[in-house]
């Protein structure tokens, strides 16, 4: 009987699922659902609810390995709690904040190679170019966005106000945001959250895959725009393009309490974007603030009508 394929859980968009799959392991992007009773990270003031929920969910997942990244300081530090609190092998992937230098790009490539060695230690196989190329062209390996699971719902055929949702990652409970926008007469035409379109790599170039798939993989993933990059001008370049493409008329900006990288962008986005922006912060407990959220979204959409 064959041994089941080990699952590697992660949540950061800079972890390429294709790289894990090429090692013969099962990538699983964890979109956390905060559970009662912390197993690793306590809910303490100052701790981002997403980082807290991710490490707790990952710890209880029974995965073969966990990949955390340095994309934010809280995740970087939550990794310390993981390695102290559980036996599941964990790996901290260094994602450079700077992106304009060749050295930073090489550092990211080297980190992917180091991740590869970790995956081999967990029982994965060292991938050949063909293994990786296949994983990169295999549709089944594509990264799913949080929204893709409900793409067919919505209010197609009726008039709507096109809305962009911008921000960091969303948890499962945050899907209510999309429902509230739709029940208020809007439709999300751009999911620019970390768990949405913005958190996806650009399409791979088949010619470059043939030349060196790892370099193409690293280049595509390293180009994901994010608030935490320094400078984060690429995030705004991406938003400019996508907002124009989707003809969004307003932005719902979502971030978690204590997420400094995104919270700091709200005021700048409002100054920059030239369209109405509704800022929503969340403590990660969807049920507790849904009434407040509904009222605010309704008011925002009424204002846009």
């Amino acid at each position, binding site marked *: 009987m064959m041994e089941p394929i080990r699952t590697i859980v992660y949540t950061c968009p800079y972890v390429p699922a294709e790289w894990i799959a090429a090692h013969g392991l099962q990538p699983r992007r964890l979109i956390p659902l905060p559970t009662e009773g912390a197993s690793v*990270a*306590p809910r*303490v*003031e*100052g*701790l*981002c609810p997403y980082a807290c929920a991710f490490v707790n969910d990952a710890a209880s997942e029974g995965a073969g390995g966990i990949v955390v990244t*340095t994309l*934010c*300081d*809280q995740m*970087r*530090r*939550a*990794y*310390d*709690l993981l*390695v*102290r609190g559980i036996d599941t092998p964990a790996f*901290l992937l*260094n994602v*450079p*904040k*700077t992106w304009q*230098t060749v*050295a*930073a790009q090489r*550092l990211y490539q*080297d980190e992917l190679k*180091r991740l590869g*060695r970790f995956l081999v230690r967990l029982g994965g196989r060292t991938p050949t170019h063909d293994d990786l190329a296949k994983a990169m062209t295999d549709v089944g390996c594509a990264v799913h966005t949080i929204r893709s699971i409900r793409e067919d719902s919505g209010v197609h055929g009726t008039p709507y106000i096109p809305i962009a949702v911008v921000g960091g990652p969303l948890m499962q409970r945050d899907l209510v945001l999309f429902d509230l926008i739709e029940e208020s007469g809007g439709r999300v035409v751009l999911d620019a959250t970390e768990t949405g379109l913005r958190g996806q790599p650009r399409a791979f170039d088949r010619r470059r895959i043939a030349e060196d798939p790892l370099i193409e993989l690293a280049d595509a993933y390293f180009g994901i725009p994010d*608030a*935490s990059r*320094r*400078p*984060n001008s690429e995030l705004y370049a991406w938003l400019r393009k996508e907002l124009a493409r989707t003809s969004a008329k307003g932005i719902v900006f979502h971030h978690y*309490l*204590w*997420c*400094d*990288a995104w*919270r*700091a*962008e*709200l*005021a*700048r986005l*409002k100054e920059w974007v030239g369209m109405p922006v509704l800022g929503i912060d969340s403590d990660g407990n969807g049920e507790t603030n849904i009434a407040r959220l509904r009222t605010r979204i309704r008011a925002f959409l009424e204002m846009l009508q």
Partner: protein
Amino acid sequence: MTVGPRQISLEQWDREYARLRTAGMTEPVYGGPLGRHVADGDTRLLKLRYDNSPAALRLWNFLLSEEDRLRAARASGRKLVGAMKDLGTVPVMAYSLDNLVAFYPDGAWWIPCVMELNTGLLQIADSLGIDESFCPVRAMLGAFVTEAHFPLPDLLTCSVGATCDDFSAIAQRLNGLGHAILWWEIPHRRQAEPGEQAVTLPGGFEAPRSQVEFVKSELLRVGGALEELAGRPLGDGALAAGIAKANHARKLLDRLRYLAFTAPLCPMPALEMLIAEMFAVHFCSDQDETILVLADLLAEVERRVAAGVGHLSADAARIFWVNPVADLQAMNLLEDCGGRICGTEYLFAHALDPIPTAIPPMEALAQMALADPMVGSSLDRAARIVGDIRRFGAEAVIVSRIPGASHCALEGEIIGPIVREECGLPVLEVEVPSITDATQATLCTRLEALVETVKDRRER
């Protein structure tokens, strides 16, 4: 010239100042009575208690005259380098070029404390979307906007990567307001893996050779910008001389800390020691004068230790303090509650270690930058704290939280249990805002409880 060591108020200091001047005390150009700084708006000074030595007076005057020094440097044609999120690396490079002056814009985090929220800096940060969920270092944004607390630098650098999110986000906001920033990457320090060459860093942490090489390449990039600003090359000779000066300051601090933390009677209070340690990071805009100020302070401490005199009672609880405090008065409060500082980790322990001199200077600086306790795991930091607790004989640990700081939410969860496991010491976590007035009763109750616990453990 000094009477016995005492902690005195600002009013008492001004009287003492007059007496010392009459007795023939000489001072550097930035000298004068401390009370004059209150007229500049530094009203928190009225609520602090100070060591009564001329060396401490010089220390305070040096600290509180930094803005004048920066403006004078600019007027004399020197270029200013604002080294953000940089705990002791770029300033060493900048001071190796004699027409550059480096300073630490992040130091603005103490302005809301020293000026008791009267400057409006936090309100400006609020208006820019950087609210109280961020660390008090957000005051720096306001300082850049008003240009009232330091002149705008000619070059602004900022380390990013394994740094706190608060500062990184605030610096990005500053960048978004039109201030050009040279970002340089400091990766999260990790252990070398099998097959990788490991480097032992100053202070004892390890990192793979590849990370040292990477940081070196980043510092070379910063060095290029400094050379361009200075209009002259930053050669190994100049850098080695700059490192030698930095090491001189670090050596003085090392001796100062050892005596202050281990003498039977506390020879220098916690507040002055905190200020002295901070100088290691940025030299308060004058590297040469920093060395003189620290030498003076050390001489005073050595005199007191030799004479067997000091502050506080001999049975004061010996406390190891983790993280700097946003309100300087917290240092006084600890002593009021019967504690005494015997060991610190104010986020920059690496800036107190000697920079290696037997290797090429840029390599040495790269190693220093990677040795930053905040760049690595909290587990590493906890290990260093445990080592220093043993070195200085502390009896309890206070982990002081900085409101809103991204690293503070979790580090107590790591450092606390490790200290308890390794040293068996009580650990107290407290939060110290920029002004503690409203929470002082609670803070004191917690500090007193810790002191009582320490004394109770002695009896058992």
